[in-house]
């Protein structure tokens, strides 16, 4: 019977690894060709543009620190989405969860301004996580109790969350003397997360993001909870038959994702904008969706891809000054990468 333990699986394993590399190469080549066509059609020299996108970030310490402050919430959101993707959910509500996290983080900052800052930070992060988780649990409730698809529930709640943020900015939390949709009164500088010298980078943000990344990696690959999440995502019926509480795992993954998005929102408030602004999530949640789509929720790849996307975005910000082109070209490249990766995967699956 030991004779049966033979080669076929190993072959298929090697095969999948090779085909994964092939898919990555195809996606990269396809995305570069596509982006080049877009660049050429708008009369931007592609090589100069790529030079900015790939390397522009590293030209000054300021830009590197901007990249880190973009990468930190992006990492957090990608970690959260890794969980919901594993459970087979498309949590498009992550933007709203981030915004609600930011709003919740503002509450202790406004109500208890006299607490020592470290305690305030802990409170702000805790409230942010709770706010994001609560917003995500609304999605879970709609999905589980009322059979509303999580995509639509999430999108709807995104509008509601940005409405709440806008209302607070213009209404109860408006700047003294004038209401401006640009944001609330900036926080006193002593509650800003401490930065590195004069740079904008607050070391606490990437540290928190990296710690959480390790935790998520461990949860997904090593714990029973993570395995159950994957089982539910891959085949909820069979998971239920094997005694896994499928609906509960769905709700937990959403809550965890919301909590991480909420922490990202708190970082936006404490370390990036230092106030609540209506578009506090800055599209980071959607960018994280692209990251996770590209890596198929494999936590080992979250760091390199999230960092690369942050580098592209930060680097391309100089496009308008240097080349007279819009910085949104980074978005074209990121989107094209994901599209071509999905395309290549679909083609290799059909074979």
């Amino acid at each position, binding site marked *: *019977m030991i004779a*049966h333990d033979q080669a076929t699986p*190993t072959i298929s394993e090697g095969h999948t690894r090779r085909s994964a590399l092939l898919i990555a190469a195809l996606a990269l080549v396809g995305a570069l060709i596509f982006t080049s066509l877009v660049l050429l059609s708008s009369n931007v020299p592609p090589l100069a543009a790529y030079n900015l996108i790939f390397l522009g970030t590293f030209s000054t310490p300021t830009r590197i620190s901007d990249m880190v402050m973009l990468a930190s919430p992006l990492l957090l959101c990608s970690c959260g989405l890794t969980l919901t993707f594993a459970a087979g959910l498309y949590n498009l509500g992550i933007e709203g969860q981030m915004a609600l996290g930011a709003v919740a983080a503002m509450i202790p900052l406004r109500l208890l301004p006299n607490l020592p800052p470290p305690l305030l930070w802990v409170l702000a992060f805790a409230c942010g996580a709770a706010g994001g988780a609560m917003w995500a649990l609304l999605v879970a409730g709609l999905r589980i109790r009322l059979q509303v698809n999580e995509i639509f529930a999430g999108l709807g709640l995104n509008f509601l969350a940005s409405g709440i943020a806008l209302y607070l900015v213009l209404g109860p939390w408006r700047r003294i003397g004038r209401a401006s949709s640009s944001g609330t009164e900036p926080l006193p500088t002593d509650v800003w997360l401490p930065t590195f010298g004069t740079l904008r980078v607050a070391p606490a943000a990437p540290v928190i993001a990296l710690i959480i990344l390790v935790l998520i990696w461990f949860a997904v690959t090593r714990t*029973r909870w993570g395995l159950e999440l994957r089982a539910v995502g891959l*085949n909820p019926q069979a*998971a*239920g*038959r*094997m005694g896994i509480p499928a609906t509960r795992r769905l709700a937990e993954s959403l809550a965890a994702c919301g909590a991480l998005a909420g922490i990202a929102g708190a970082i936006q408030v404490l370390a990036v904008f230092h106030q609540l602004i209506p578009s506090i999530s800055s599209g980071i949640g959607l960018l994280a969706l692209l990251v996770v789509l590209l890596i198929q929720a494999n936590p080992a790849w979250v760091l390199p891809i999230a960092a690369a996307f942050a580098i592209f975005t930060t680097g391309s910000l100089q496009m308008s000054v240097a080349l007279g082109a819009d910085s949104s070209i980074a978005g074209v490249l990121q989107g094209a990468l994901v599209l071509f990766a999905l395309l290549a995967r679909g083609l290799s699956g059909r074979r």
Partner: protein
Amino acid sequence: MEVSVHNLTKTFGTLRANDRISLHFAGGQIHGVLGENGAGKSTLMKLLSGFLRPDGGEILLDSTPVALGEPGAALRAGVGMVHQEPLDVPGFSALENLLCAAPRWALPTRIEARNTLIVLAGRLGFSIAPDDPISALTVGQRQQLEIIRLLACGARTLILDEPTTGISAAQARSLFAALRRLAAEGNTVLFVSHKLDEVAAICNTVSVLRAGQVVGEGQVPMPQPQERLLNMMFGGGADHTNPVETPRRGVSTTTNPVETPRRGVSTTVPAWQIEGISARDGNMVLAGLDLSIPAGAVVGLAGLEGSGQQILLRLLCGQLRPSAGQLRLAGVDMAGATSATFRQGGVEYLPADRLVKGLVGPLTLAEHFALLQPGGAIINRHGAEVKARAAITGYNIKATPDSPILSLSGGNQQRAMLAMIPDNTRALVCEQPTRGLDVASARAIWGRLMARRDAGCAVVFATADLDEILDYSDYVLVFFAGRVSQMLPRAELSAYRLAELIGGVGFDAVNGRAKANPQ
């Protein structure tokens, strides 16, 4: 309209679903087509109505060879099929369905469509009005609408696939009256069924299919003795005199499937006790069911597919809540219990769709065992791998612990699923336990199931394979159109009698509804 087929052949992979079928259906008559599940009836009807293309042979309508590439072409040529599940749009009214499903030339205007509907419904005695919403119609009425649509589109040959499934007796009578009338007007009706009494009631001729071929000399005129038809359907090899057959597929652990009573059976509580249970699933209803399924026995559920076996299987593992009555699992009342509660109570369910309901395809064998580890937040990878290895050796699974379940063959998947069943399982519910397996794999699976039974586990299984029922059951429950027989000891059941019961012949004598059952 005369319909003939000549040497018609259709293969799916290695399966010859229709094998050189030659038949002639005369106009102005109702022709029955009989056969057990998988005999090739549906394939033949789909070929005739253009849903499938033949691989060989030809179809002749009024002696002219035709190529029916798709259902629309078949309908233009005058052949229309009424499916078991009516194909309609639930949100539309009857008239709107008629309009959107009919080609423009058939019903050019809304008024014309309305008139056609009213006239045809009146002529055929159908109770259907143009503005009825589909969602408010019964299956019988939707079927009537479908017949009206086909006639409005010019069908002169109507094919009905199991038309009386899920409709009331009154609707069946009205359907039969309409079919007789249509035949009298010169139309051809092909009536596919497995209910012998219905075929006897309305058919002028009958043709029997078995294993993709026409049985015997082909079409025979009705009436025919029931015995002859059963013989044709289930094969003349069935032993008519000796009720106990020796199992053809011997399994090491079962020398004789009818050696009862089994160790300890009399002292243990029945695995399941069912009192006055009613349950519904779609169109099918089981009502007032009383049953007691003993521990340590194999109970085979026989009957043509969709006769109610699914409902009982799902009831037994808690996937379907009864609308009335009481179910006790090992003496414990399971009122309001979920399938998780049943599972904790020791019931394991082995679905037929292994990769849909049973296993998580992309996960590996070891990961499945990790999922089954009792508690512990962190996966004991080593423990799971040891268990997977033990299962591989013990159950002769051709795989490694790291093989994704997807990469295993059907037999290996089934063995893996069996290997994952905990030892303390009290009762097993199996849906087609050997579906798609070769003979050796099927035998191995049954060896395992019999070992479970001998250890005191109750095994309930449903299958379309009569031999499997006869070879492995201790008791047989026969399902016929939502009615359930008593628990029939296998020892008292011949293959022929079982075939009769499945066709509904003499079913009243064993109908278990009023009486409680064995022992």
